């Protein structure tokens, strides 16, 4: 385990609880999808929990998050309630986006969670923009932008890297390199597969970290955040990780073999921390069962909350397309186009 971080038992248990919370939640979502409770696309975070939990632990409440469509872990780790996240996937009005976004579009302004994004690489320029605003408004908040290694092929990645360095924007880029962009292995899509090296080429401090080790991730992120707050410069973390399930629920996974998946599962993020805590007598079976049953109870309550959620009335279909002030000026609900 990384020595720099003060090995505080309570903190490690909390990290384990956060990761387990994501793991069990995602597994329940898989089940609920097969029962047609959740529809549309579903991209699960199982195997990458250490990154979200590690990074979020190093942030402060006013920092801003931009995520992707594989965002349940980030939302839970950031503090969005499991109830509001699951209700959103049920499409109910008590969901965090009033049921309108679904799994790929979770938003929560209070938590500064600026949502998932279904367009690969779509979030990078947004994060740079949020950072520009913070810089101009002289806020101490920093912006954290999560994306997968697939986004590295998008033009927006390169444009955002350049602007972030050019304009010295306080943004932390977190590349969750899980080795597969949907059905294409990294080596088949990138000439240079060391992604941190790409960021360095833009003059940005860029570091690689074992994305399966939550303690390492937290330590490196803490250092990065300090650097950004003091020097008002962008920073790049490439977290090497692996997703244990398909790209989405409907994926024959023809692009990788089962053996490789099993290998990675052997030292998954939850497994690693659990094994370390038990070997160092910080955790026993009983404690673990208590934690797991608390999480299962939280999941049951989230399901009830989502089930009781109401459908948005059809009459409100076009509400919020424009902010109220504009609708009032032109005296009638808009039929499209600014007044």
């Amino acid at each position, binding site marked *: 385990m990384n020595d720099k971080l003060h090995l505080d038992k309570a903190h490690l248990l909390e990290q384990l609880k956060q990761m387990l919370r994501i793991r069990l939640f995602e597994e329940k979502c898989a*089940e609920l999808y097969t029962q047609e409770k959740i529809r549309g696309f579903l991209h699960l975070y199982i195997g990458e929990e250490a990154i979200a939990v590690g990074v979020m632990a190093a942030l402060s409440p006013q920092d801003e998050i931009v995520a992707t469509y594989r965002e349940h872990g980030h939302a839970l780790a950031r503090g969005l309630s499991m109830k509001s996240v699951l209700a959103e996937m049920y499409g109910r009005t008590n969901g965090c986006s009033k049921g309108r976004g679904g799994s790929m579009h979770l938003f929560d302004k209070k938590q500064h969670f600026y949502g998932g994004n279904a367009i690969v690489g779509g979030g990078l320029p947004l994060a740079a923009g949020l950072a520009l605003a913070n810089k101009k408004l002289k806020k101490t908040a920093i912006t954290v932008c999560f994306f997968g290694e697939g986004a590295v092929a998008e033009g927006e990645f390169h444009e955002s890297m350049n602007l972030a360095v050019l304009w010295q924007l306080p943004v932390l880029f977190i590349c969750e390199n899980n080795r597969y962009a949907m059905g294409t292995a990294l080596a088949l899509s990138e000439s240079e597969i060391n992604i941190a090296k790409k960021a360095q080429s833009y003059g940005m401090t860029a570091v690689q970290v074992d994305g399966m080790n939550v303690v390492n991730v937290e330590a490196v992120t803490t250092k990065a955040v300090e650097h950004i707050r003091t020097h008002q410069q962008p920073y790049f973390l490439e977290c090497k990780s692996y997703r244990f399930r398909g790209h989405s629920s409907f994926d024959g996974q*023809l692009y990788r073999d089962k053996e490789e998946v099993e290998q990675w599962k052997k030292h998954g993020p939850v497994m690693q921390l659990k094994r370390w805590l038990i070997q160092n007598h910080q955790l026993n079976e009983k404690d673990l069962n208590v934690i797991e049953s608390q999480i299962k109870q939280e999941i049951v309550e989230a399901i009830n909350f989502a089930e009781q959620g109401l*459908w948005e009335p059809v009459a409100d279909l076009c509400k919020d397309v424009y902010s109220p002030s504009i609708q009032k000026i032109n005296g*009638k*609900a808009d039929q499209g186009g600014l007044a």
Partner: protein
Amino acid sequence: MTKSIDITMPSLGADMTEGMLVEWLIKEGDKVQHGDVIAVLETQKGAIDMEVYHDGIITQLLLQPVNTVPVGTVLATIEVIAAAEDTEEQSLNKSKQQSSTTEKTVTEQITTEKIIDEPALLLADPLTEKPLTTTQQSHTQKVNISTNVDTVLASPVVRKIAKVQKLDLSVIKGSGPNGAVILKDIAQITQKAVLTEGGLLTNMRSAISAAMTKSKQEIPHFYLSLDVSINKAQQWLQQANHDKTPKEHILLIALLLKAVALTLIKYPRLNGFYRDDCFEQASEINIANVISLRTGGVVVPALRNVEQLSVPEIMHALRDMTRRSRAIESGERLRSSELMNATITITNMGERGADRVFGIIYPPQVAIIGFGKVNKVPQVCGDKIDIGEQLTVCLSADHRVVDGMLAAKFLNSLAKKLQKPEQL
């Protein structure tokens, strides 16, 4: 304490409605754990592993491979240790009924939400942002429509036909929005005009056939005829036309029309309309005349209030109407008033026609009178035989409205009137 749970065909994709069970990886009695792969499914995305979401023992495999079944079909059952799972299972089942209830409210919500007309859905009252009730909206629509009250509202195709046929639209009650005159409002008046490339071709054929077919199918016709001596009428005409110019020349048909008009005053049952299963007495006597056109087909313009016209006035109107009808190709036109609300029709093919003419009634009228051609015949006067002129008057009538006896009385009364031409 254990509980049995169904393992169903999972939905794995947004548009996956069915799945093919290719292979079971477990058998009945096997102990399984949460996340174990228990079967292989084939989908359009290739083979996908199927997981079990509970720890427990497989009790029954209900479906054997290879089989394609809809999502949700029960494939197997599993016995789970109830304790730990209990709270979650119960809540899940409870929530299942609940979700089914909420599902119901959803469908209710959609059906009770009557399919509001699209604009209404969006029109919101700016202050309260509640959608305007339909009355409020129709009010707003009416306000700005009624301002230009002078122009007649009519659809473009109606305006085009009216311009070409010089129809006066202000006379016609429109059934379209805000009283606009639309095609169906002028369909009865004109032959259904079919606008084709490069101008208007009055579609005579289809209009005539449509009216005639409707009449023959719906109206129970019966026919009567009476031979009528017209010696007196011809003598009257000779005197009336003596050294008169062609403009003032009177033909027999004018006399016949006036006689019919006056007789209808005594027998109004033949002069009206049969609509919505009942007879409606006409308030005027407008007699339509079948005018054959040089290029084939007919137009049936009507003379209004014939009983109030003198015989010369009738002749003048008839001559002008015939001239215009037969010169439509070179730009002549009929007036819309001439093409409207005829109450009875006359058909007369004149000296080159037939002896007897049994016409088909023009719906919604209830009678049509056909005048045969004038023939010189031997007539019995007292006990002498004389040469005289005679024509046959034929009446087709709608048996739903008129009976034989009434029709016969009408014909005899008409014949009597023709014996005193000077009183017409």
